[in-house]
């Protein structure tokens, strides 16, 4: 019995070591060019919404547009409006019926 327990402990230790190596290995790899670019600073992330609104037609509609656009530019492209719409559609397909009306209000026309 002590030998069996020792063998079991050894097997568990080996499994834990393998699991740890598997989970940490990807972090040791050099980042791909896309991943490196994702980590780079996006200068447009700090847009001046009022100056952006000054480029557009003026009025409250376009001031709101500029504020929303400046906010969107601060997000990675993967979470842009179109991606958000795709994510919303995916969420819609998985959502319970009670949530669908709420989600529908978030999905803009293409």
């Amino acid at each position, binding site marked *: 019995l002590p030998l069996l327990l020792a063998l079991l402990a050894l097997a568990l230790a080996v499994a834990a070591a393998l699991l740890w190596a598997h989970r940490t290995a990807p972090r040791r790899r050099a980042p791909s060019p896309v991943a490196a670019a994702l980590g780079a600073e996006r200068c447009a992330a700090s847009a001046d919404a009022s*100056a952006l609104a000054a480029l557009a037609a003026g009025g409250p509609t376009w001031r709101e547009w500029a504020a929303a656009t400046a906010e969107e530019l601060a997000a990675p492209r*993967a979470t842009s409006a179109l991606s958000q719409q795709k994510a919303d559609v995916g969420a819609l397909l998985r959502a319970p019926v009670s949530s669908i009306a709420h989600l529908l209000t978030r999905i803009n026309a293409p």
Partner: protein
Amino acid sequence: VLLAMPLHDADDAALSAAATSYIDAAVDAAFPACAASRCRLSLRLGAGAGALHSRGALQAALVPFLRRCPGGLVVVHDVASPQAGPALPALLPLLSEAGQYEADGAAVPAVRAAVLLTARLAGLSDDAMDEEAYRRAAKGALVAALAKAGGGGEGAGNVAKAMRRRVDAVAPLRAALQGRPGIVGDATL
């Protein structure tokens, strides 16, 4: 981001050099970090001095910039110019969610760049519209103009639709810019 202007029959379809300079200065004010880090590139498609009119020329301008400034701001003027068609396919990787260029056997990612397009669009109204109505009208006019610029074939139509899908935000370019002398053909001031 697309900034659109109505194009009337009597107008010159292309923006003047004065117009692009003026808009670039306004863009620098709106994106000060890009201007301060010299990571704002301004290009013009179509005909005329300094305009890019081929896919290779556009990619050759974009790749060195994206290598230096992967998170930079690219302003592309006159994307709906009648002469812009051949260059347009090279714009798609810049606008795609996971877009990248291949140059000298290496990938040059475009995914962190922000892109601002300007276009003069026929059939676009001067009248005030809400944001959603304006976005739909401008995207429709953009597709029509790009398909025409590309020769009207199936390939041009596909590029036009791909461009439409990749534009997230649309606004009218400020009327004050349009009215400045020398900015466009129908200057009113």
